[in-house]
């Protein structure tokens, strides 16, 4: 080893470590052997190790996924959409079967994650992702011919050409089957139209009467007042209310009376305008009168009352869950929430019909071609609040990865500082610091971390809480490294070059920084890498138990927090497998890098 290497500063050795020194000459083995600094040997050994390469690839991949993904999507943490809860991974919500397109589209209706189409020959088609068995068609379903379809959030009704109602999908409130009571009501009546909404269904008979069934106990949409029963010509339904279009051109509402959508503007109820069509989103109503004017009312959320300037003759009105649409002979106008791209309506020439339901929209032109927009699916599914798991994983990744790295930096910095103080000053300071370290080490880690984070984190905001966790993890785990560094310094300070430096009159502080520090840096880096993986796992465990990162902030650990019962483990595998796999990939990557690093600095490994 040449002496001039020893003159290099800390920065110089860092430079060496990352191999930035230029060396273009071709050297023979002997020369190479002579010139390599210890740091270069480490770097060479490190990159010769396959484990290190695998580790770097895995870790880089997961970092790019989290940080780049999070920056690209600009994830809103507070966004929730309960109708989209627990949807299994999959896309293709907008992939209309070509056969349906060729045969001529009569109707397309959408649920939360799937759509059902009806062609001119009475065949039905399904596409998208099955939620609550919504696409598990009963045997013989595809052989029959149908005249109508109706799709709720997670169930499907179809009116056969034989006049029977067939249903499948989510049936917790028996919304997808016609029960005995209803059969009595419908005896001798002919069905004009069928409807389905969130967990309930309804039929309109040719006598202009409406019967609703399913989850109607709290909303009471099945209680149709006697004075309007028999006058109903059309129905539009959402979770808490049904809007009824009556034969005198007025609109009536049934269901939850206090809701925004139940406050129908007076001009629509007193007969001053003649309504020809009505539709409703989750909490807003949209009506079209015979003069081509539109009327909007209901909740102010998502800007649904801010109607854009509409030009041209109105052809049709339609609605999604949080969006409203007006199709004119010039363009399709859309307003409301655009979280899932519901408003990105394309320009369609010669528009024939617009089909909108939940988050999937279809526009069919007069030659039978379909243009689609809206939600095309969730690659990784959704969680219990209907949040896109992919975005959640990205945002959680930034938290989990940075909590780990900052905790590792804090603990390494403290360990290095305290170890160096202890090793160099010695005496009472050494004794005191090492005793203190021993005390910290003798309190079991996990219990005390949980105790501290539940105490410190209980009264602060979720984002401050993340910082607290970083600090707690860092503050509790320096003693191990401090001991290592102290031991190393005790060895290094007795070496000849330190003695020589001292004899030359170099200040003690400078000796530490430029002569001793570079020799302990490698231990610190290995320690930091391995403890990084440990901190990531600790943070995940902490958040899993509910003492770490708190909602609405995401972390890979707290995404599993809600998976506590066997039902969730069994039915919603993506909610626990995917976040846990992210933790595993990141931790394996870091551990591989750390192991390869520690092998690389191990002098025994360099022996030939």
């Amino acid at each position: 080893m040449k002496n001039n290497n020893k003159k290099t500063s800390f920065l110089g050795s860092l430079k060496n470590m990352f191999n930035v020194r230029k060396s273009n000459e071709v050297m023979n083995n002997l020369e190479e052997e002579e010139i390599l600094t210890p740091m270069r040997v480490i770097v060479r050994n490190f990159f010769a190790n396959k484990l290190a390469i695998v580790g770097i690839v895995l870790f880089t991949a997961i970092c790019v996924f989290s940080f780049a993904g999070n920056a690209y999507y600009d994830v809103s943490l507070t966004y929730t959409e309960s109708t989209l809860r627990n949807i299994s991974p999959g896309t293709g919500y907008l992939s209309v079967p070509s056969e349906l397109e060729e045969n001529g589209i009569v109707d397309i209706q959408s649920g939360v994650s799937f759509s059902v189409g009806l062609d001119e020959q009475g065949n039905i088609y399904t596409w998208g992702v099955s939620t609550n068995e919504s696409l598990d068609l009963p045997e013989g379903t595809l052989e029959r011919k149908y005249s109508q379809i109706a799709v709720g959030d997670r169930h499907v009704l179809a009116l056969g050409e034989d006049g029977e109602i067939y249903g499948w999908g989510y049936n917790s409130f028996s919304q997808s089957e016609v029960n005995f009571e209803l059969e009595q009501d419908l005896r001798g009546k002919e069905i004009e139209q069928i409807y389905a909404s969130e967990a309930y269904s309804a039929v309109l008979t040719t006598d202009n009467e409406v019967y609703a069934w399913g989850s109607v106990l709290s909303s009471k949409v099945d209680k149709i007042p006697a004075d309007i029963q028999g006058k109903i010509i059309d129905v539009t339904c959402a979770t808490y209310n049904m809007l009824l279009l009556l034969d005198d051109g007025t609109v009536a509402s049934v269901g939850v009376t206090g809701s925004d959508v139940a406050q129908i503007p007076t001009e629509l109820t007193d007969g001053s305008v003649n309504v020809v069509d009505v539709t409703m989103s989750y909490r807003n109503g949209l009506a079209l009168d015979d003069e081509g004017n539109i009327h909007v009312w209901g909740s102010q959320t998502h800007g649904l009352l801010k109607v854009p300037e509409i030009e041209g003759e109105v052809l049709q009105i339609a609605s999604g869950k949080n969006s409203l649409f007006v199709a004119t002979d010039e363009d399709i106008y859309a307003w409301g929430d655009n979280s899932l791209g519901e408003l990105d309506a394309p320009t369609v020439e010669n528009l024939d019909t617009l089909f909108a339901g939940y988050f999937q929209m279809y526009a069919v032109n007069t030659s039978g071609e379909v243009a689609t927009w809206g939600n095309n699916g969730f690659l990784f599914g959704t969680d219990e609040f209907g949040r896109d798991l992919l975005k959640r994983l990205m945002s959680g990744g930034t938290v989990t990865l940075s909590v780990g790295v900052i905790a590792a930096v804090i603990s390494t910095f403290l360990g290095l500082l305290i170890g160096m103080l202890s090793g160099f000053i010695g005496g009472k300071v050494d004794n005191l610091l090492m005793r203190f370290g021993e005390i910290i080490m003798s309190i079991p880690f996990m219990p005390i971390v949980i105790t501290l984070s539940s105490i410190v984190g209980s009264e602060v905001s979720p984002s401050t809480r993340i910082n607290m966790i970083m600090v707690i993890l860092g503050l509790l785990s320096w003693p191990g490294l401090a001991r290592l560094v102290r031991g190393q310094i005790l060895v290094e300070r007795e070496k000849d070059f330190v003695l020589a430096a001292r004899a030359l009159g170099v200040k003690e502080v400078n000796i530490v920084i430029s002569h001793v520090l570079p020799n302990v840096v490698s231990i610190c880096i290995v320690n930091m890498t391995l403890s990084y993986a440990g901190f990531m796992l600790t943070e995940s465990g902490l958040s899993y138990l509910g003492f770490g990162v708190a909602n609405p902030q995401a972390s890979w650990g707290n995404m599993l927090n809600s998976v506590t019962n066997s039902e969730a483990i069994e039915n919603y595998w993506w909610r626990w497998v995917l976040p846990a796999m992210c933790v595993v990939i990141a931790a394996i990557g870091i551990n591989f890098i750390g192991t390869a690093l520690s092998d690389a600095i191990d002098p025994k490994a360099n022996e030939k």
Partner: protein
Amino acid sequence: MIKYCIKRVLSIIPVLFVISVLLFGISKAMPGDPVVHMIQGVKAEQYDQQYAYWEERLGLDKSLPEQYVAWISNLAQGELGFSTSYNKQVVSVIKDPLVNTIALNVFVLFFSLSISIYAGIQCAVKKGTFVDRFWQVFSLTGRSVPAFFVSMCLIYLFAIKLGWFPIGGMPMQLDGFNLLEWLRYLVLPVTTLTLISLAGTIQYVRNSMLESINQDYIRTARSKGLTEKVVIYSHAFRNALIPVITIVISSIGTLFTGSMITESVFGWEGLGTVLIKALNSRDAMLIIVMNFFYAFIYILTNFIADLLYAVVDPRIKLD
């Protein structure tokens, strides 16, 4: 030896003192008034009277140093204090969970040690072969997998899909203690904890065994013509055992602390579950007593490990 013991015991006392002060400080820094928590639902006219009664009974009306002295002297006499969330003595709160945790971890310790000693020796002897590389990858991966994930996978596979074992919880003991039923509940948590702990211990045994295999006395033993089995198990392993004792002893510490995450996934009513419950209900006394207990066990087992070193290795002199 005796002199060393006395010295060590004396050095433990200041450590315990500092820990107790720290933990006492933490418990006092906890937000929320434990008395208010305790007398929830008391009628308004009796509230002040009840508050004063409980404050005095829990000793909260005194100054902080006085409270500390009262607490620590009670602790020294074996009186652990009063749990406000369970409304009974701490001793009776942690008695049953302690037994559950020990039972769980005895199995874990047994399996993890027997497997890791066997696998560690195999790795060292067959260094560089497939067996070695398999266990290396296994332990590296094992160190990177969170305990809750292993638990959930086991639940999914063996409890939900195959239905061989219960999903979790504690066995019902309506008609007496049923050992077989009890063991069925233990299988999955024990498997989880064993898999997790194997990762570290195999590596440890392997390294310590490698060190001893390269020693001169092994070469001597081989040159004497001893069979490989004798060389490995009675010469190399017995010397490799010394560092292994460290992990055995430190694992005894975990016999008591238990694994909070695994216990909580499986609903096993051990000490970890009690601590989580105590934290959720801000039961200060229970929290600090448990942490203090953990620290005490840890220090004690370290002390025993040091003594055992000298017993198994006559070369080590304690003084």
